[in-house]
């Protein structure tokens, strides 16, 4: 029996060397370790082994079995490694330069920019309010102190409707409602679509977006307005902006200002974008007219506040590089889809 085991071992040693692939190895495993394999075959004779030798033979058999199992496992690992390596080396080279198919739509550039600006205001504790597009004459004009005979009320400038209402000419039309809603402690912005009866060209639309904000509280002053506008513009443009106030005139504010920002293109030195002045007229603003506060039930002796406008469409054009405002309402998908979805 001992001899047989020695023979099996030498047979295994030579067969093992010939195992070139995993299939052959499996055959070898079955040949030696399988149910009908040589080891089992030899073990059939174990009963006949004299008792005193059984221990020795048993140990020999186990040793041989362990050796074969180890060798096969070793070989298997070696062959698998080789196979993996071959598979890797022969792999198809994937062309990742092929165009990606992301299948994504797009948001309107106004949506993208307004959201970005709104977020700045929200971070400063503002509520974002909404208004109507079809307004009463009262809300659009009277409530914000536009005199009865003001030219803005003419049909040449305002879209009047056959029920006596108007397409709102400015976001200020929402002021009265918002001031009534929040009372004398109010920080709100309200973007919205506005309408003016004018001819279209690259810089003029009859349907455009404005964004307006108001801040009302006790003892709000011109100096506060100046501070606020600087901070706000820092948020909107993500950098420090130099500003200056100039006298302006709007019916809904007193005093009224034009706020200029130092020209972003030349840094204030003067260039063609700013007409050489170094300043760009950016937002109309002012201290809310006492009549506007009074019309909303707020005591203008006790409370004061300021309002400011941001030409939303101008901001969109400034930030996106669009040079013709008419694109915004064109519904031209091949243009609009380029703006993507980043909010």
């Amino acid at each position, binding site marked *: 029996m001992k001899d047989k085991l020695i023979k099996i071992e030498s047979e295994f040693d030579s067969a093992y060397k010939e195992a070139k692939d995993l299939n052959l190895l499996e055959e070898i495993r079955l040949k030696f370790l399988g149910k009908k394999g040589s080891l089992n075959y030899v073990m059939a004779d174990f009963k006949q082994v004299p008792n005193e030798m059984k221990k020795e033979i048993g140990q020999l058999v186990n040793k041989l079995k362990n050796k074969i199992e180890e060798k096969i496992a070793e070989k298997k690992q070696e062959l698998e490694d080789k196979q993996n390596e071959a598979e890797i080396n022969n792999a198809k080279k994937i062309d990742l330069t092929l165009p990606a198919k992301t299948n994504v739509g797009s948001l309107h550039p106004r949506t993208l920019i307004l959201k970005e600006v709104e977020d700045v205001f929200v971070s400063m504790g503002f509520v974002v309010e909404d208004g109507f597009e079809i307004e009463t004459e009262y809300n659009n004009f009277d409530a914000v102190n536009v005199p009865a005979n003001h030219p803005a009320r003419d049909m040449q400038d305002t879209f009047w409707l*056959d029920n006596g209402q108007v397409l709102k000419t400015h976001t200020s039309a929402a002021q009265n409602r918002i001031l009534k809603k929040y009372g004398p402690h109010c920080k709100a912005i309200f973007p919205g679509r506005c309408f003016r009866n004018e001819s279209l060209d690259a810089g003029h639309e009859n349907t455009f977006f404005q964004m307006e904000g108001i801040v009302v509280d006790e003892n709000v002053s011109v100096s506060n307005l*100046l*501070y606020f506008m600087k901070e706000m513009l820092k948020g909107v443009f993500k950098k420090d902006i130099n500003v200056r106030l100039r006298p302006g005139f709007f019916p809904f504010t007193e005093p009224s200002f034009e706020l200029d920002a130092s020209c972003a293109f030349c840094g204030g030195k003067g260039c063609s974008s700013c007409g050489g002045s170094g300043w760009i007229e950016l937002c109309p603003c002012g201290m809310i007219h006492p009549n506007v506060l009074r019309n909303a039930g707020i005591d203008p002796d006790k409370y004061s506040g300021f309002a400011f406008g941001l030409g939303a469409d101008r901001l969109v054009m400034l930030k996106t590089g669009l040079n013709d405002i008419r694109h915004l309402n064109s519904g031209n998908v091949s243009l609009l889809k380029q703006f993507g979805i980043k909010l």
Partner: protein
Amino acid sequence: MKISLNWLKEFVDLDGITKEDIDKKVNQMCAEIENIEEKGADIKNVVYGKILEVKNHPESQKLHILKVDVGEEVLQIVCGAPNVKENMVTMVAKVGGMVCGKKIGPAKLAGVESFGMCCSESELGIGSDDSGIVEVKYDVKLGTDIKKVLPIDDLVIEIDNKTLTNRPDLWGHYGFAREFSAIFKRPLNPLETLDLSKLEGLERIKIKVSTPACLRYSAISCNNITKTQSPEIMKIRLNYCGMRDINFLADLTNYIMLELGQPMHAFDNEKVKEIEVVSSKKGDKLLTLEGEEHEVPENSVLICDGNKNSVAIAGIKGGLMSGITEKTSSVLFESATFTSEAIRKTSRAIGLITDASLRYEKSLDPELTKTALARLLYILTYYDDGAVITSSFSDCYNYHYDKIKINVSADFISRRIGIDVNANEVKEILERLGFSCNISGENLEVLVPSFRATKDISIKEDLVEEVARMLNYGAFTAKPLAFNVEPVVQDKEHTLEYQAKFLLASKYNANEVHSYIWDYTDFNAEHKIETKPVLHLMDTRNAGQSAIRDSLVPTLIKFASENKESEENSVRIFEIGRCVPSIKEDGLANEEKHLAVVFSSSDCSEEELLVDLKNYLVDLSENYVYATLNFEREEPSQNYMHKVNTFAVKFNGEKIGYIGVISPIVSKTIDKKLKMVATEINFKELAKCRNYPKKVKVPSLYQSTHLDLNFVMNTSDTYADAVKALSKIRSKLLVGYKLVEVFENPLTPNKKSMLFRFEINGKDHSLVGEEIDGFMNDVINLMEKAGYPLKK
């Protein structure tokens, strides 16, 4: 408007003040400067010269060869002007000099050498005459530089008119002189005028005013006026300020207008002896000075002579027949005030905006009519000492503005500005601007001057502005705001708008568009889309776009059709916008905010498109609104929606919108193969919907069993029918079920089957075979009873 600095200097000493000072301070304290032009910088070495000899040019009929004495030398100059004559004194640009930026060099004209150029007024920019060279009629030393005699060097400041809208007092030089005196803290000289009280006793011109739109009408007449040419200084100032000089009388009225802001008119006194100011009637016409006939709109203000002939459209334009010419020696000067609305309305209606109408639109101070006449007569008699004033100051002053007194405290002003000022500082600032102030303690009683009291200043906040701007906004320091810290609750609807848009764009591959609030009536008609607008624009200039839309979908159909080609037949667009589907009981528009989406394609079926669109609505409502929507087949009220495949979108039984296929009646007019689907949701209603979010179920510790059962149904049966039947399952084992697939077989067109997968779980124990079989049999029986047998 253009302001000449030389002119201002007549009223206020501005020595030592630079162009930069003006640019900075006036911009920040008064009005926007568009441009400051250095006049005279482009005129060099132009001197007085006398023509000694005029010879014909051998080669040219038009040209002459002149010998011109320019003081230290006599130059040969070839000149093309028709008015050359011997002994005439003119202006000569010498070689090396410059005329309006053009350098003068020696030249050969038709073969003859020329050393200089004789100039016309127009070439020098000092007058409008371009018919010939300047003929100097005053005494000068030959060879003197014209700049030494004439005020050619000047700064002309161009002010943006729109920043003067509320400042009628700044539409003339004297008003700006007052501002400059306040800004630069220099004294303002009084205006030199003729004392009109001297004229008392002379005959009064008969003036009758029968319209409230004329606030004041003043007039004075003169005769024996012989001067026809304006003095050089007047011509230069008019031209620098953008007006042409015409003749002395016309120039004089314009000069007063530019100086004081008060428009003036000169009538030929032979033709106009009395004045009647009336409201125009239908059909009234006027032939203007330029020879254009204008129909005067009804209820305009019309100036008539004593015989009811219209002689001017008040505040806008004078008539030709009564106008002055160079021969006129007898004149009636008008100085009047009209309401701004009356002038603006007429001016817009006839499309004629003039220097006068622009000023009247700003609400001029009626006090100014008298000052203007007194100033005009002063200048007239200064330059034409033969002129005789033939009437007293004749005046019809029907409307006086209220005198405005404002009480304000220095404390109020300080709080509003954010800078501390005391009563004396306020007083000093206001008085420089022409206000008068009485101080008692920290309180001031401020009297507003008439020229600021027509609409500009009436309340204490107006005084805040005056003080603030005179402190110079440029010198303000920014002061932080102090606020309570309170949580801010944002509007849910507004947030949902962004979510709805973002979901559509990021997951459903759709593009957001913006459109107009009106229907495209022509497009709709062409494509058989019927809308039911209830509101229209009054202005019908653009008739095809004057109906306010009752739905967003027709516009999106238009956009989808327009983008079809560029988007390779697959367009997915959406908009959240407003429309007006009805008028409320109080007559106001019922404005609604709608979310509308249109998917169109020629490559896939209507069903695929519609299912995808429905998926979006469910996705949005389940994941962002926490609401479960139902879809119920409903015959649409819109003709452009499909009669069979349109569904009401409902929440808790209330309709909040619709979804469906766009009727082929419409889509085929765009493209025979085009399939279109649309949905339109009332966004405000959607944002209000809310079921409580689903409760979280804790997963069972025991393994679930999944059973697939396939039930046979009629083709017309819906998933909802199957769900209704399955809702009768009472077994506590059921965790849930889902539809795996719908099988349709062309061989059995009336039948289909739905494969459901049921999940059952013992919850507190492992399921045993009998339980599973029991559940399965119950479901099969239940479905069979409902008419949906198990597929064998």
